């Protein structure tokens, strides 16, 4: 038995939330201990081997701008890039990178272990106690003891976890790994959601047994931008591979439909709520009987790895049924399965008992982040991890400080506000639709959005120097765009014609030129700067061009939202409302569950009736 004493912060769980929390805390020169299972890789990817995606790409860049790990790890282990929604405008564009998952984990471990103030303990935490004076004491399965001032729990799906594979039910959160039954006792004081959550994953396929030639190939996009600030936009660390696209068909679905009684999801074996946005193939087959095919994305799990992740086929059907239906899919006729798909049911905490710093409202010094908070996705977990890590650190350094991201400035802010204020009833994933300020919360301007938060952390590392430089460049170039004018002249008109800029009927500024709706903002600005011989960081050019383009729209949106927010920002007394006889029983229940503080929170409650809103607007607000 050893004693690992006097840590500033202990992080329990080495997933995406845990490693961000530990990594950022170490930047504050605090003494950090990361305790994680000995047989689970650090920063592992138990589901799809990809980082980013619509809405999530923005989160990765926000994490990177806060000083996090994820963007760097994803770039260095990326093997296939895509820019999603490329044709739909900059605001909703997102980068997604397929990664070599093994490489990703190794890299994460290397980075953490080379930080001298991070200790990694590979054991199972069994007992947690809170001593008087606010010290946390943890004991692991080997009898070791750890003490710390702050505790961050990033336990993922491991609380009371049960796995389902056909009729087989095993205790645990990830295939082959045990759950922590004793550890759970500590959570008696933490309110859990009454509904358990459920998640699932598809079978992993032996890549040698797939016929790629009949599937649609999706090559890596060589122009997609890296996440990490110090990486060039398009440099690649690893070789690039392709993903493939195939489809399920009538045969696939009829096999699944014939085996309904064997499906834990549909025979009552699984009670938990799964995410509607990420349905299992059983869900798709039974809930949408009219559809006879769905996309399946064939994603390699690594350069050397022999396994394929078939995205879109998450299942908990018995092994033989999995094999049977997989082999009906084009290109998978001879497929062999390396690991079968399964579903997990787990407890999540009621995040309304957390504050916006992710600290527990009653138990001081205890933070929660990641899937244990009922979110899904590595990016969501990492985003919470870094916020919990920063706040736990700040509370030790200067108790007057805290980091609360505004929902108008970041997707992480949207997520945390939603988590701590709303009564969520399914695993939470970020969508761009969750943000009211989508035109502003973009990938290209992540540093602009996050700069003030990072600066408030009072650190002076490379990233801080870069961000200061970036902001200066940005402001300079923005001014340049506003000040540079093209005067009407024959030469200039000819130049406009030659460049396909459209007519030059009156003097216009460079900014106005960049904003012209038919033009590619970034290309135009880049081209013009080349003409002037002006050199700017390409990240700055991109952010300035897009900011110019959206400025008018953002301002107008603000005017509209201000009109609404005069009402929206007003406080309401939810207790009074929840007793009002003038509100339907159903709406009252929802109000009781959500406890909305403002009219806008009331408005965003699922299923609240317009009549109720009209009533509250008129009788409770002035």
């Amino acid at each position, binding site marked *: 038995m050893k004693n690992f004493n006097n840590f500033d912060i202990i992080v329990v769980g080495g997933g995406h939330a845990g490693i961000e929390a530990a990594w950022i805390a170490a930047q504050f020169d605090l003494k950090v201990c990361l305790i994680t299972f000995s047989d689970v890789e650090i920063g592992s990817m138990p589901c799809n081997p990809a980082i980013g995606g619509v809405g999530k790409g923005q989160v990765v860049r926000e994490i990177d701008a806060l000083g996090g790990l994820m963007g760097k790890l994803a770039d260095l282990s990326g093997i296939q890039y895509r820019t999603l929604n490329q044709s*739909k405008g*900059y605001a*909703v564009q997102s980068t997604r990178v397929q990664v070599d998952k093994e490489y990703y984990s190794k890299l994460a471990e290397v980075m953490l272990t080379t930080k001298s103030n991070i200790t990694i303990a590979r054991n199972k935490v069994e007992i947690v106690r809170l001593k008087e004076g606010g010290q946390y004491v943890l004991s692991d399965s080997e009898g070791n003891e750890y003490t710390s001032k702050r505790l961050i729990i990033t336990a993922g799906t491991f609380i009371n976890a049960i796995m389902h594979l056909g009729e087989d039910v095993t205790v645990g959160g990830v295939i082959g790994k045990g759950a922590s039954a004793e550890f759970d006792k500590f959570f008696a004081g933490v309110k859990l959601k009454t509904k358990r959550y459920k998640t699932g994953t598809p079978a992993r396929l032996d890549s040698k047994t797939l016929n790629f030639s009949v599937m649609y190939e999706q090559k890596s996009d060589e122009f997609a931008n890296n996440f990490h600030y110090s990486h060039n936009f398009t440099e690649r660390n690893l070789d690039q591979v392709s993903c493939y696209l195939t489809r399920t068909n009538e045969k696939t679905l009829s096999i699944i439909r014939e085996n309904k009684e064997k499906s834990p999801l549909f025979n009552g074996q699984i009670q938990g709520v799964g995410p509607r946005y990420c349905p299992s193939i059983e869900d798709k087959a039974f809930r949408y009987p009219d559809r006879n095919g769905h996309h399946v994305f064939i994603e390699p799990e690594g350069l050397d790895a022999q396994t394929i992740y078939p995205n*879109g086929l998450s299942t908990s059907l018995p092994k033989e049924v999995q094999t049977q239906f997989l082999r009906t899919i084009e290109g998978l006729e001879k497929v062999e399965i390396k690991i079968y798909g399964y579903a997990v049911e787990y407890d999540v905490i009621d995040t309304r008992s957390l504050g916006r710093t992710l600290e527990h409202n009653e138990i001081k010094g205890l933070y929660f982040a990641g899937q244990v908070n009922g979110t899904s996705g590595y990016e969501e977990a990492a985003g919470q991890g870094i916020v919990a890590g920063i706040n736990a650190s700040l509370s030790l350094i200067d108790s007057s400080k805290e980091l609360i991201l505004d929902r108008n400035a970041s997707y992480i802010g949207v997520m945390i506000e939603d988590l701590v204020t709303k009564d969520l009833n399914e695993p939470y994933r970020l969508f*761009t639709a969750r943000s009211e300020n989508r035109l502003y919360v973009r990938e290209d301007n992540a540093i602009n959005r996050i700069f003030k938060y990072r600066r408030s952390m009072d650190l002076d590392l490379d990233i801080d120097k870069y961000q200061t430089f970036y902001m200066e460049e940005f402001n300079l170039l923005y001014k340049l765009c506003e000040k540079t004018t093209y005067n009407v002249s024959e030469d200039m008109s000819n130049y406009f014609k030659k460049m396909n800029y459209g007519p030059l009927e009156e003097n216009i500024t460079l900014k106005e030129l960049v904003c012209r709706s038919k033009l590619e903002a970034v290309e135009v600005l880049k081209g013009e700067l080349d003409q002037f011989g002006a050199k700017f960081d390409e990240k700055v050019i991109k952010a300035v061009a897009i900011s110019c383009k959206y400025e008018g729209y953002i301002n107008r949106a603000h005017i509209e939202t201000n009109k609404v927010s005069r009402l929206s920002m007003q406080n309401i007394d939810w207790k009074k409302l929840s007793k009002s006889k*003038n509100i339907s029983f159903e709406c009252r229940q929802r109000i009781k569950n959500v406890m909305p503080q403002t009219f806008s929170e009331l408005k965003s409650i699922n299923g609240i009736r317009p009549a109720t809103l*009209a009533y509250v*607007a008129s009788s409770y607000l002035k």
Partner: protein
Amino acid sequence: MSVMPKNSPIIACSSGNDTNTAISVIRCSGFSNLNSLNIFFKKDLSLIGPRKCYLTEIIDGTTTIDSAMIIFFKGPNSYTGENVLEISVHGNKLNVYRILELFTKNNTFRLAMPGEFTYRAYLNKKLSVSQIEGLDLFLNAKTPLVLNQGIMALQGEIHKNYLKLYSAFVDLKAALELSIDFVEDIGEKAAKDELSIKFDQFAGLIEWLNQRTKTEVSSLLSPTIILLGQTNAGKSSLFNRLLKMRRAIVTEIHGTTTDYISEYISIKDTDFRLIDTAGIRSTKNKVEHIGISQTFKLIENAFYKILIVNPFETKSDEFTKIEDVEFDLLVVTHADKEGFIDKFQSLTGVPKYKSAVYMDLSEVSIASGSIGPKNVKSGPIEPKKISVGPIEPKTLKNGPIGPDLKNSGPIEPVQKSCGPIGPNLKNGGPIEPEKIFNGPIGPKQVKEEVLLSFIEKKYSQICEQNPILIGRQRQAIKQIYFQTKKLKDVLHTENDVAIISSELNILQSKIEELIGIVSADDVLNSIFDNFCIGK
């Protein structure tokens, strides 16, 4: 409505209280306990059940003031959602006043402010904003159309349509979000199709609602028929003839200037105000000028505009003043006079019109010409008397021949007269004039009945469209319609979904305004400030 203190018990006489009536109904609302009203009644109120009628006496101390029928509505099952007591008493003004005094003197009740019962009903979610607007319409309706619309709005029909629009919008918004966040799951084409289906559904609804706002409202709430023409064209004759046929029982006169006279005529249960204008003439007289500009205002708001032209006494340059007005009907007079066709053909600058007829007003016009509306100070009797006179000789004269027969004489010349009328058709006149002048039967001299049937037809056509009459809703619908059109353009030209989505957000705020989620306060303030609703 911060001006209205909440929760205190209020009382008011809910039936008309300016005159003596058989029965008046006094309404009390907001008292916490029925027994607290025991002092006012002989009957022990603890014994009465809700929604039942009791005969009792109202007492002041030991003195009986009146006998009364009372009904108790226990909140929330009442109009206001509070405890309500309705008291029917004898409708003598003084009696009602004395009872109100009694109930308010110890501050048990205070007199309700205008609209306060309805306001409480709104606060207690008994009525929605559009229902209240409907109630306003209903209680103040002057025509059956408005009455119908009022009751529909009051019963929540219109509100239902708005909620339907809202849910179509929510679907549209969801479809757009689908194309952003879930395009990989469902595929690009499916997302696009979904978006266009949802847009069409929404656009169809708003198009339909917008159609219902197209009618000029002011012309429907108290519809007017306006007669316009140059001096001696025969306006007054027509005025008198119409009046003779359909004079409404209401004889209220609204004309306050010497520039026009007006009377009410009744066509199929709807009272129309018939206005004989001052006529149009060039003038340098400033005072007259003001009169004429008032005339233009009347024209603008008129439900049915009739232009009367006597081709023998027409100065074409005088048409320039009204060249922008589109008339519902052109009435040509003096068609039987010699040289009619030439005269008519030589007319230039006749304003646009939708239909044309001619009427024989010749004899009458002489008579009325001598009166000249200008000289008659809104006197209802005189013009009527005179108009009665001249009509009779006319019927005598036309009687034996029969107007149609007589007029079949000049068929040919009149047919030729299509020439000059033709160009007017191009100016936007629809088919009807052709029917009248060119139809298989030939030109038709019409009588007043036909003219009235034109008016009736237009009115019933508009009623069939079920127009939305409430100003605020019309305004909001128009804005939504406009924003939807803009959105349609943006959907076609803009690839940037975030920009499309920001247009959608603007649309959303306008829809929320329509339903009353946003700025419901302002809506209600304006309603309660302007009207005395359901007092």
